[in-house]
């Protein structure tokens, strides 16, 4: 059963990736300007532009260009950056590693923080603590990450001078784990605030729902210690709807890294992708998009799978 399900999801995943690359390819070509123009700048002579376009293969029909790219990609060759003339794979994988570090740390912060806050708020419904959490969660959702990033960078990086607001390691004498953690602090928190808020709200309402269930009353009636009721019965069951949400948040977090990376000069794939779009470096854009979409899609498959394992009802339906 699981196998056919996995197989179906896998085919679906491939289709999603194909669709994503086609859409990006079209969008990049519909946008005015091309790599030749971006490289040569305002004083680009017509003949020089035409020659460069010819050499870069930009004069071929769109579908040919796409198929050409696809063919190479299927053979494991993502092509070369037009602007830098280096293999796309060498750019995107090293950058992705940095995004993965930032993203996973933020994700852990978001999950732990969101679950803890939401669960406690749910248990203590109506209390002062609960209200505070609701206010914080609402503002967390409302504040755009890049804005928060700039404020945090200004306050902690420039004014108080307690945390670095730029880059991944210190330029001189840096490089250790402690150095990395220091540099991670601001961007990771910036990135985590939104998901924390979403997870906390969801956890809270899910907890409230579970609280009203019969089995909770039964557990209490059995004379179980309140802590055992909370962890074994309430928390476990409240978690079910949240698992799916976590998968979704992981994807959202991935897309939000682009702006946070720009604000904190974090050498990640988001910043690379944004820059490649601005310079019309199509192979780099395509490569980054493919990688990001693949990660997004795989994460969501895992989330579905986990959801299915935890909650058999999903499977049956």
């Amino acid at each position: 059963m699981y196998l056919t399900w996995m197989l179906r999801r896998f085919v679906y995943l491939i289709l999603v990736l194909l669709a994503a690359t086609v859409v990006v390819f079209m969008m990049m070509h519909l946008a005015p300007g091309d790599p030749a123009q971006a490289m040569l700048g305002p004083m680009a002579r017509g003949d020089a532009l035409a020659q460069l376009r010819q050499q870069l293969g930009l004069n071929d029909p769109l579908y040919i260009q796409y198929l050409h790219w696809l063919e190479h990609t299927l053979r494991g060759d993502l092509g070369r950056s037009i602007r830098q003339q280096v293999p796309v794979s060498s750019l995107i994988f090293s950058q992705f590693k940095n995004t993965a570090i930032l993203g996973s740390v933020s994700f852990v912060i978001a999950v732990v923080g969101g679950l803890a806050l939401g669960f406690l708020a749910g248990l203590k419904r109506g209390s002062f603590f609960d209200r505070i959490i609701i206010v914080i969660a609402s503002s967390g959702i409302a504040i755009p990450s890049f804005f928060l990033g700039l404020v945090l960078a200004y306050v902690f990086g420039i004014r108080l001078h307690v945390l670095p607001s730029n880059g991944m390691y210190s330029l001189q004498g840096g490089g250790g784990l402690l150095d990395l953690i220091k540099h991670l602090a601001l961007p990771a928190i910036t990135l985590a605030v939104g998901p924390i808020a979403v997870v906390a709200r969801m956890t809270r309402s899910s907890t409230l729902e579970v609280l009203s269930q019969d089995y909770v009353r039964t557990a209490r009636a059995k004379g179980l210690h309140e802590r055992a009721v909370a962890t074994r019965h309430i928390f476990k069951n409240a978690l079910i709807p949240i698992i799916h949400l976590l998968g979704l948040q992981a994807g959202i977090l991935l897309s939000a890294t682009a702006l946070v990376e720009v604000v904190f000069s974090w050498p990640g794939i988001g910043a690379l992708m944004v820059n490649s779009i601005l310079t019309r470096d199509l192979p780099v854009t395509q490569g980054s998009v493919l990688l990001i979409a693949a990660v997004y899609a795989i994460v969501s498959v895992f989330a579905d799978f986990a959801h299915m394992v935890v909650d058999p009802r999903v499977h049956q339906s």
Partner: protein
Amino acid sequence: MTYSLPNAMRRIASRRQVLKGAAAAVGTLGITSLLAACGGDSSSDSTDTASASTASSSGSSGSSASPSTGDAGTPKKGGTLVVGMEAEISSFDPAVMTGTSTFRPVSSIFDMLVNLYGTESGLQPDIAESWEVAQDAQSVTMKLRPDVKFHDGTAVDAEAVVFSFERMLNTNDPNYFGPYAFPPFFYPTYKTSTVIDPLNVKFELTQPDATFLSALAWNTASPVSPTAVKAAGKDFSNKPVGAGPFKFVSWDKNVKTTMERNDDYWNGAPLLDQIIWKPIVEEAARFNQLLSGEVDFIVSIDPQFVPQVQASQDLQLIQGPSLHTWWVYLNTHEEHLKDKRVRQALNYGVDKASLIKNILHDTAVESRGWCWPNTWAYEPDVVQYPYDPDKAKELLAQAGFADGFDLEYLVPESGSGMVAPKQIATAMQADLKKIGINLKITTLEWISYLAATANGLDSVNGKQFGMSQESWMNPVDDPGLWVEFESVSMPPGGGNTGYYENSEYAELLAKARTTTDKTQRAEFYKQAQKIFAEDAPWIFMFHSNFVTAARKNVHGIKLNPDQNVLHLKDVWKS
């Protein structure tokens, strides 16, 4: 999940909207540049810019360069200089690289054949000691400095120079790994190069071209070590070997690039132990890093930060004249702008002095045309357009437009060399309103802007525009190809976006291109400038300075008019 991608793009788009709100809210942070970063900053990707470069006196000329930092105390050896760049280096291979932010770090590793130093007018010797342009302007012969070596010990000789050009421009060369953007673009008339003897090399051209020589001041023409290129192949960008004052150490992409002193440099070892180049795309972040001392020197500074630098105890503002020009095309096909008097009125109607003072914080000088003040081809005695709204109105009335009219103005959101495009456009709008001209501003992201204006102003996405904005940073004080491209060559393919036509003017420029005698060439350019100012096909705006800022303990920074090259050999820290 099929929407994952468009959704991601939408997020970026919608965030830009919010960003604008945020920018207003956090004014003190100066996030406009983040907008630029999202909206199309391509300072990294085109050939002009409005930022700065410095130069030490170097070369056999030993010229004293113009604006410099206070050289308090005795120069000290050692230390690391951290430079904040506005974009990551695109490549260390001179054949591949594009963009000013790349040219600058590359210029520390690769010495060039000829160079610009300080306030000396014209080309100065670098690796080439002397040169001669043939009478027919169809070849250039260069004599190289003896005993110059690349960092790997290979000799910088005629063979190496020929190798460096052939591998860039001859697609059949075994070491050609193109396509390349800049080499054929800068050297369209290159035919071949040959070794005369170890120290003499000859470039042959397909047609007479007096501008070929000055185009060698782009560091695309830097000689590269043949040994290193053959060994590294396409990977040369990651293992660059040149003959400059600093040697390549490592390149951690998007994080930092490290270079170390070349003790065997032909012109004496530099003072610094190391230079670290750090890309900090976001304008405010770059400035903040300078404030906090994480970087020592930023070579590109937005005019909005100038007052803060001047007020700071720890910082110094270093600026000097540059070969930058910022202008507005007037579409001579547009029904009102056909009339010269209207174009002149527009020139009288913009208060450039106030704009330079209030928006650019005195980091620019007014322009009277395309040529840079105090350079050999400059003609100061042309028709001038001081701010005079009354005179502007009078001219408009004479032309039959006393009641004013609407005019479409196309403006890039950002872009290299485009110093504060939107603020300036808005200021112009306010000025011209006073003489009855109602500017309707349309803004476009930089690359879209380039694409939109490439076909001229008559048909920008199906609509006729009256004005558009442009700027250019030349590598040498030779107006040469640039001016011909922008004021004679018709679009598409040419940059004369406003369709200016004057056969006498065009002829003067054409003559200047093929004349080898410099005095004679200057004369042609000067006459052309007079005609151009009178015809007013542009609104003559300003020439931006080099604007840089450094910590106060950095000494020996001398500015050069050429922004593409940074000479850091004599810089030291106390």
